[in-house]
């Protein structure tokens, strides 16, 4: 298998993906499109959290906070000015936001940028902490962002949230951003800097003693992860068309965490699959909540039973498959061909034995 061939295969599969996206975008109904869009956004979120948690080993629970920053940034930048005047009823919007009106792509980049700035500021002091303590501190940060969003109505419209955001997000955007995220983070992981990140995860003291600057690398990973969380937040806002502080509660981070754990720490392929599975199940498990009547035995309607199912699933994964769905295997063309080779050889040898 030559490098050149792999390149062609990658280009061909991206073209096929493009065709699939085109067909899905044009022929699927809004409900199915919404699930696919969410799946793709969760890919971005999951892969970016995996960079921080899975590859660098920094237990961060701040992703909902970065998403919130991104979502509000995009919302404020893409809403037409006249519409902002209508919806900000508690307090009028403050100056620069009243006139700002930018293209979607610029808004997304700003979202990522501001989330990254926030990560830089919070990361420098907080990344000195380790393990659970870091988790608690970043969780606190996410909550602070949410509460701030609740209490500055002149920018965020408070608890009412921002409504009527133009629905810019389609599959082209969400899948495109997901691919870009994977490209950048995979590039990072497979470089010398990525090795340094994984060295920090495996043994912090050893990494430092062989010359890895801990602060620089941890903050770098945290900031890049937050950038993509911010962009995903922007996509999220323009998909749901309405955001309010409640959308960015801890549950949001927890969902992303489920995706990362399901997919496996440090597995990008696993995260991609888990992101889509999670969103499919979240929707198609709805019948579970409808209750069941078997005559002698009946289960009442219990709203939220879906999430219980997920928690149980998470427990099973943690107990029996710590490396995630794929067992830590990363997709590669070479691996795929080896798999098929083995598969067919087995079949043919079985055939000849008969």
């Amino acid at each position, binding site marked *: 298998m030559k490098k050149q061939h792999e390149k062609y295969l990658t280009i061909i599969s991206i073209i096929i993906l493009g065709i699939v996206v085109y067909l899905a975008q044009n022929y699927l109904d809004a409900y199915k499109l919404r699930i696919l869009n969410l799946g793709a956004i969760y890919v971005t979120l999951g892969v970016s959290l995996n960079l921080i948690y899975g590859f660098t080993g920094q237990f961060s629970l701040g992703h909902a906070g970065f998403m919130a920053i991104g979502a509000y940034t995009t919302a404020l930048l893409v809403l037409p000015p006249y519409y902002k005047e209508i919806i900000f009823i508690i307090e009028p919007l403050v100056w620069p936001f009243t006139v700002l009106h930018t293209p979607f792509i610029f808004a997304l980049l700003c979202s990522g940028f501001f989330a990254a700035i926030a990560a830089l500021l919070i990361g420098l002091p907080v990344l000195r902490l380790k393990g659970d303590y870091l988790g608690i501190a970043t969780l606190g940060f996410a909550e602070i962002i949410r509460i701030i969003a609740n209490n500055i109505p002149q920018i965020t419209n408070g608890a009412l949230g921002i409504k009527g955001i133009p629905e810019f997000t389609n599959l082209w955007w969400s899948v495109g951003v997901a691919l870009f995220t994977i490209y950048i983070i995979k590039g*990072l992981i497979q470089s*010398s800097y990525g090795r*340094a990140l994984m*060295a920090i995860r*495996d*043994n912090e003291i*050893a990494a430092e*003693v*062989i*010359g890895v600057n801990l602060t620089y690398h941890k903050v770098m990973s945290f900031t890049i992860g937050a950038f993509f969380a911010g962009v995903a937040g922007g996509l999220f806002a323009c998909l749901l068309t309405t955001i309010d502080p409640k959308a960015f509660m801890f549950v949001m981070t927890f969902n992303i965490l489920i995706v990362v754990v399901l997919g496996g720490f440090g597995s990008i392929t696993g995260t991609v699959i888990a992101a889509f599975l999670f969103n499919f199940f979240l929707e198609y498990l709805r019948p579970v909540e409808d209750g069941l009547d078997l005559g002698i035995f009946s289960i009442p309607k219990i709203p939220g039973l879906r999430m219980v199912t997920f928690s149980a699933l998470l427990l099973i994964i943690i107990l029996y498959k710590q490396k995630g769905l794929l067992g830590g295997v990363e997709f590669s063309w070479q691996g795929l061909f080896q798999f098929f080779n083995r598969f067919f050889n087995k079949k043919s040898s079985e055939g000849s034995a008969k």
Partner: protein
Amino acid sequence: MELLNMDNVTMKFGGLTAVNNFRIKINTGELIGLIGPNGAGKTTVFNMITGIYKPTVNKIYFQGQDITEVKPDKIAKVGIARTFQNMRLMNNLKVIDNVMIGFHLHLKSNLLSAILKLPGYTKEEEEIYNNSMELLKKVDLEKYENEKAGGLPYGQQRKLEIIRALATKPKLLLLDEPAAGMNPQETRELMDFIQQIQDEFELTVFLIEHDMKVVMGICKRILVMDYGVIIAEGKPKEIQDNPEVIKAYLGVDSDYA
């Protein structure tokens, strides 16, 4: 030429003095041993040199430069590398990656060119890979290139850790009990290996060891520590006959005291 100078350095943890008035001058090209009973403070000395601990009193100089307050990663950069008593490999990473990480601190390409795999970076990465393989070959580990480091046998993990330290291109190499847990055959190989790399990389080696055969066999100068202080210093022969050292290691029968 004077490489390392610790001038009456003291390390206190609260009320406990782990190392008291430790002084040593190491010249380029030397191979010095540090021995002493368990808990004598030997590893603390290494931790002070590599910046993991900051000495409470006095300073440490490397090539005339004060490195007392310098962080561990910067100390690696000026040219001090070490191994650990209880090996610290990146167990989940491949053997080759463990070595390649050692070259990271000399990487010239910036983050962006590394992510985008620009030609400048690709060339550097290739160089790093080749140099790492070269190092692996020295300890016959090249066939385990793609194995996980944690899966290697104990003796080979020890060698890998030394190789990783060499990848940082050190001037001074600190080895913390390199022969611990090795059988006599492996120990002999290790002694040869240490002398071989010392010549080849023009290294200065400072090692902690419990195995007397190793220390007496390869070190030209030995320091003995007990309860945080240096109790003897000299050539291997002198150390062997020193009553203080015998007392520290074997204890003294109270009848004869």
